[in-house]
């Protein structure tokens, strides 16, 4: 991979020469700092001086932030990779082939995928640390970790926002989606590689913005940013809106890229009937992103205007209820954006591990598509405490029937596993655990869909337990399954089965003991967003915290194990799982190009009744140069 940026222009590498340059990430940070100072000063000192003239005002920080993010993107390489070539300048920039390529703008979908994965892990660690602080606080019924409830609530907000927008919606889509989708559909690149390169660098910017929000002031709303509280809170909420804007923009660009890749970059013979299950998952989830992310961005923009101008659209003199509605109109599809990739992974990995043909494939696809459609019709079940009686019945109805298409994922898996030869590898184990966890999340979801029950358990820890079952339980467990399943693809190396299994059982037990008790806490009267609570709830909270901390340690150990095996694991063959999908039909890791010749697909990928390959010709790419 000598120089992707020059390849795009057709320049030959001989014309390029190296110029001394700061590491792109460092340059991006410096440019961002300069841009922030210039634009912030311009607003707060020149254009919009406030009484007592503070150096940083809400207006100046907003404009300064926009400038800083643009400068950051330019600094990490968009300047050389996109802007200058657009104006016809030759690209004098060589892309390194070693680890440094992961720390700069790239147009290679595999580099971008891994960058997304690293960004997501970073967000997971930061937001997970916030969760540990929260659980530590809740071990005691009084304030003892935090000095005031506002600090606790800001932590809750950072935890939820970073987890949702940089892990839940990104880990499997921006990360695994970007890396695998072009490989799975038999293409050497994604549809919009340059845009895709830009979108990744919005993720660290967004995470940093949300994490730095307490610099501007506390915000107490949690990740939902409910109005009118948001407009009443100190200025930290400004960085919530801006950070989320960066993260959702990134996901939107991923969605455009993945949709176009799946629609237009498929190899010959890869008909709609043969699209891999994971690609179906990415397609449905990308359509959800395309529909709903612009909607919530507009809502947050109105909220931001409310905080900056002010523009009291959602306050007491406006309509607070409207904010709740536009938030959940996006908010419920959002949780399916998180979990639909997990459904797809179950159906992707288990036929391979069982070496048995996928059962009732069309019903699995119907399930994914109908979950996507119905997810936009159930949103108001987050608001049973806010709606008139006549609205309860339809929303309850749609919420209950979304269990039917969701159940199809189970139907497919059960039929596939029946009389299979299931290898109990770490990915298999994690997928089965994920299915168990989602079952608990789903069953409690049926309870929550019933309005009379909902009116009791809404906004209690019952709900907290329910959505952590669907997000950690289903999505994060499947995320780890994906790490283990595709680790040989990323690195050509295998993890340790023993450690993988031990750690998986560890997180399974810690997760279930912690979160099952949260259901009971909710039923016993534990409400949400409280660092201080009645003393009778303390003993169970103590146990929950203990197991939550064990869960956190388990996650860290998983990452350490994966990181160790990334460099030191035993080498394996190219297709260690004997999968028939396209990404395994080339070298692991793939060479300079995914496929030296674009494969021709001649049959479906999930038929294990014989040993015939799904592709017509040998499509091996070169072995990686300077293989590790």
């Amino acid at each position, binding site marked *: 991979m000598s120089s992707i940026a020059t390849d795009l222009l057709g320049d030959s590498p001989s014309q390029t020469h190296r110029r001394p340059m700061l590491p792109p990430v460092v340059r991006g940070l410096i440019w961002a700092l300069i841009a922030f100072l210039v634009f912030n000063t311009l607003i707060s000192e020149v254009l919009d001086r406030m009484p007592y003239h503070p150096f940083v005002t809400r207006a100046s920080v907003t404009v300064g932030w926009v400038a800083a993010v643009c400068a950051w993107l330019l600094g990490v390489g968009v300047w050389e990779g996109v802007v200058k070539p657009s104006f016809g300048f030759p690209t004098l920039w060589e892309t390194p082939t070693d680890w440094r390529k992961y720390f700069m703008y790239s147009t290679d979908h595999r580099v971008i995928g891994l960058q997304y994965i690293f960004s997501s892990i970073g967000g997971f660690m930061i937001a997970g640390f916030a969760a540990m602080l929260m659980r530590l606080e809740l071990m005691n019924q009084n304030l003892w970790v935090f000095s005031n409830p506002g600090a606790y609530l800001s932590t809750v907000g950072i935890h939820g926002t970073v987890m949702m927008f940089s892990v839940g919606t990104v880990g499997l889509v921006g990360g695994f989606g970007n890396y695998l989708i072009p490989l799975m559909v038999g293409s050497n690149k994604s549809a919009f590689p340059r845009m895709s390169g830009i979108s990744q660098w919005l993720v660290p910017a967004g995470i940093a913005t949300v994490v730095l929000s307490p610099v501007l002031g506390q915000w107490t709303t949690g990740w939902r940013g409910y109005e009118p509280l948001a407009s009443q809170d100190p200025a930290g909420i400004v960085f919530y809106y801006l950070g989320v804007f960066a993260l959702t923009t990134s996901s939107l660009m991923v969605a455009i890229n993945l949709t176009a890749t799946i629609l237009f970059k498929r190899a010959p013979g890869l008909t709609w009937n043969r699209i891999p299950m994971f690609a179906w998952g990415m397609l449905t989830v990308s359509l959800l992103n395309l529909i709903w992310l612009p909607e919530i961005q507009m809502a947050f923009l109105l909220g931001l205007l409310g905080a900056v101008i002010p523009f009291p659209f959602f306050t*007491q*003199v406006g309509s607070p209820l409207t904010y709740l509605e536009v938030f959940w109109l996006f908010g419920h599809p959002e949780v399916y954006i998180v979990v639909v990739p997990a459904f797809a992974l179950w159906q992707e990995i288990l036929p391979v591990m069982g070496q*048995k043909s996928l059962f009732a494939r069309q019903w699995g696809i119907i399930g994914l598509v109908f979950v996507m459609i119905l997810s936009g019709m159930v949103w108001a079940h987050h608001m049973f405490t806010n709606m008139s009686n006549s609205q309860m019945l339809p929303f309850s109805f749609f919420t209950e029937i979304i*269990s039917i298409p969701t159940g199809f994922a*189970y139907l497919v898996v059960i039929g596939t596993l029946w009389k299979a030869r299931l290898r109990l590898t770490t990915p298999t184990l994690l997928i089965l655990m994920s299915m168990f966890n989602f079952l608990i999340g789903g069953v409690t979801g049926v309870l929550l869909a019933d309005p009379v*029950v909902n009116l009791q358990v809404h*906004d209690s820890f019952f709900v907290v337990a329910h959505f952590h079952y669907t997000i950690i339980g289903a999505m994060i467990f499947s995320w780890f399954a994906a790490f283990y399943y595709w680790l040989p693809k990323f690195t050509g190396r295998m993890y340790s089965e023993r450690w993988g299994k031990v750690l998986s059982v560890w997180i399974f037990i810690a997760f279930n003991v912690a979160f099952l008790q949260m259901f009971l806490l909710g039923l016993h009267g534990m409400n949400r967003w409280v660092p*201080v609570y009645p003393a009778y709830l303390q003993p169970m909270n103590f146990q929950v915290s203990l197991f939550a901390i064990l869960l956190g340690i388990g996650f860290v150990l998983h990452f350490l194990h994966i990181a160790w095996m990334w460099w030191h694991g035993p080498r394996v063959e190219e297709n260690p799982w004997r999968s028939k999908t396209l990404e395994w039909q080339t070298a692991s890791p793939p060479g300079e190009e995914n496929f030296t010749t674009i494969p021709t697909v001649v049959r479906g990928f999930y038929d294990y009744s014989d040993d015939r390959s799904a592709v017509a010709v040998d499509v091996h790419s070169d072995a990686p140069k300077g293989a590790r």
Partner: protein
Amino acid sequence: MADIVGFAVAWIVTSALGELGVSAVRRGSIYYYTASNQALDGESAFGFILMMLVPVVAFIVVMLLYNMIRFRARGKEIVRSHVQFYTNKTFVTVWIAISVVVNLLFYLHPTASALEQMFNGEEARYNRQDLIVNVTARQWQWLFNYPQYNITQAADANGNSVMFLPADRTIKFVLRSYDPFHTYDANAGVIHGFWVPAFGLKQDIIPGETRYLYIHTNKITSYDVNPMVRVQCTEVCGPGHPFMEAPVHVVSARDFQKWIVSQQKQQQS
């Protein structure tokens, strides 16, 4: 065939054990502590759904475990399964039929039936003898006002808000969110949530709207008997949110009258 029988036996046994467990929980109390008819309705809906879902959950869990153990690959070799099939019309049809039927059942009962109970409880013709309690939520305090008895702000001897209710009576809570001490501040109102855990229902209180919540108390109890008999804010409303609670006392009609008199005296002094 042996596998189907083996699975069916495991499933039936697990379901039976699960049903025993659920009925034991239902004989106890799913909601831990209840003090209103509405809470009992909710609790029985909860129990009914659990009871119906036990065989469904058992089917999936036993199936996953059965597949995992019975059909696991032995040895290191990767061998294709010798049994291969792509679909099974009977299984798929039965699966879809059952999921549709179970969902329609849940929609009719308990969803629609329990909601009908709740709607009926709110009908004006049933509620002529209601005790009206005006509940005002401000940051961060509950204020209780009894308009039928001219009590503008119910408080204990220390001046903390307290709620007394007569037992076996329908209570109409009139819910508003604003700050009566700072009415000039249009930004003071935020969303609060009115919840008495032992009463089994809650409602959000949105600034600018007046909302109603009906409860029929069914026993004499108080915050001192069980801490679930308290008013608790459930919608995050700023840093004071965790402290926004008030004790509730459900007393006999006579004790309620006594309390009214003492409040009226306290108010005049």
